[in-house]
């Protein structure tokens, strides 16, 4: 019995380790590469997993001081924050209106809004490409600020509807009996109870702007206005020469913090995903 238990535990750990290895090995490879010297990296006889020459920080110096990496970081951060604000300002009232103030057709409209989320950027980037150049936003990060909410607003509205629905309507009615107006009942009662939904929206929207590739690739053409997701793979390659160490450093510096933040808010995000899905 004891033996069987231990065998089972062993199998469990082995399987988990296998999955983790699959997920994490590219990152391990990125981290090792980051600290390697050229002559160590580019000799195929060397064991690639060991430091045959002493590790170096020079690649990080190149990344931060000789490339536009910090510009990309700032652009991504700026676009992310502005889009999060726009999304919250549009999606919170819309979701509340659809759950509480629109009667039965609110449900239908909620589904319709979610269907908008299913329209992928790949279908829209070609007309957008022309529209953006017509209104003179080509090569400006404001084009991204304008367009990203088309992805985040439908999804976040739907996400928030799930959260608002889970709040008992009695609470708002009680607040209104106590003399709050409809609007104040929403601000003072519903909003504080929806904090985890709002956090989910912030995390989702920010990472969406960080991840988005095709719009950023199509609309932005100069390196000073690139965001991380396009700037790193496109601009850090000079000619045909890949600066692999700096490239890997650039990727891993973003990946690890976002991964930890994601894990932290995972439960909120999952709650939102499934709540919306299950409750339609």
């Amino acid at each position, binding site marked *: 019995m004891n033996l069987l238990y231990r065998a089972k535990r062993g199998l469990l750990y082995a399987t988990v380790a296998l999955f983790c290895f699959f*997920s994490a090995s590219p990152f391990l490879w990125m981290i090792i590469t980051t600290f390697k010297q050229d002559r160590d990296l580019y000799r195929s006889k060397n064991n690639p997993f060991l430091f045959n020459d002493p590790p170096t920080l020079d690649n990080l110096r190149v990344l931060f001081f000789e490339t536009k990496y910090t510009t990309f970081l700032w652009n991504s951060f700026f676009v992310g924050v502005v889009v999060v604000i726009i999304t919250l300002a549009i999606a919170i009232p*819309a979701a509340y209106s659809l759950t509480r103030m629109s009667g*039965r057709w609110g449900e239908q409209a909620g589904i319709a809004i979610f269907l908008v989320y299913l329209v992928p950027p*790949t279908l829209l980037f070609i007309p957008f490409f022309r529209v953006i150049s017509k209104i003179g936003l080509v090569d400006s990060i404001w084009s991204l600020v304008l367009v990203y909410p088309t992805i985040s607003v439908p999804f976040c509205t739907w996400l928030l509807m799930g959260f608002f629905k889970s709040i008992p309507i009695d609470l708002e009615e009680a607040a209104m009996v106590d003399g709050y107006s409809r609007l104040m009942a929403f601000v003072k009662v519903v909003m504080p109870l929806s904090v985890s939904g709002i956090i989910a929206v912030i995390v989702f929207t920010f990472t969406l702007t960080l991840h988005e*590739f095709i719009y950023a690739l199509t609309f932005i053409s100069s390196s000073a206005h690139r965001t991380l997701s396009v700037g790193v793979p496109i601009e850090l390659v000079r000619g045909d020469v890949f600066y692999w160490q700096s490239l890997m450093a650039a990727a891993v510096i973003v990946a690890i913090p976002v991964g930890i933040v994601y894990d932290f808010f995972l439960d909120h995000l999952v709650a939102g995903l499934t709540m919306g899905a299950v409750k339609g």
Partner: protein
Amino acid sequence: MPDRMAFEVPEKAGTRTLADREGLLGTLFLLPAFVYIITLVGIPLVLAITYSFSNVTAGNTAFDFNGLENFRLILATPQFRRALWDTLYFTIVSQIIIIILATALAELLALDFRGKRLARVLLILPWATPISLGTIGWLWLLDSKFSPIDWVLRAIHLLGPGTIFGPGLHMNYLGKTNLAMASVIIVYVWRFLPLSAVILMAGLTSINREILDQAAVDGSGFWRTLLEIKVPLLLPIVNVALLFGFISMFSDMTVIFLLTRGGPVYYTQVLASWAYFKGVEGGALGEGAATALFLFPVLLAGVIMVLRSTRRMEVT
């Protein structure tokens, strides 16, 4: 709409004014989202369809309708047909692998073990990383000359002269059609597995414990419990996972754009990447739009799936 609402608001006298104000507030609340979606999704969507029936190019501002000419042109190219096939192939194969692995992973993460927190962070990493940066990592991992996988294969004598993977010292993963296709699928599985696993995990925790306990008491074994209780109960949530997986994978061009650029030759091209190369880099917006429009049927299937599952929810 106001009539409808007044009708639904309960009967008490005096609620009429509140209902009216509520209707107004409701409209005001909804207006920004409505205007935003109509102007920035509705209009471009109509434009996308219009473009695909016109001879619009990147340089030329005027355009004329040319009927089905774009569709005739793109259907005649082998690149497009290959892209259509590859899109379906990559998506379906990856999603099958992903759903199986994700179910296993969700089962594992439902158990308690030491280091679970760390495991969770590691498992979520591929999904948290911007897809372009993750793909760049794979590009280096699968490098034609310096791939560490090659080094391991050589070290255990599977690669090199006189071994089963042939006399060459390098596999050249992205340079051979079959290997490149397999590489693309592996990168997709790597990237989208966490998303599906997370969704399934949430579904698994929502299964009523009592049902499982009762099944155990009744002597149901592991496989029976899995196949006759868990799988049917998980099915709606598997649909959600598949929906998200399909939509995000089907329309993705990043992996192809950075990993293979459609190569070798054009054998790993997908619709989204081909639309980009054709429409933006090649300047033939009309043909690009027509190519992207082929994503529509699958999209529609997704839409129908959502509508059906929500209807089922209402019935039960």
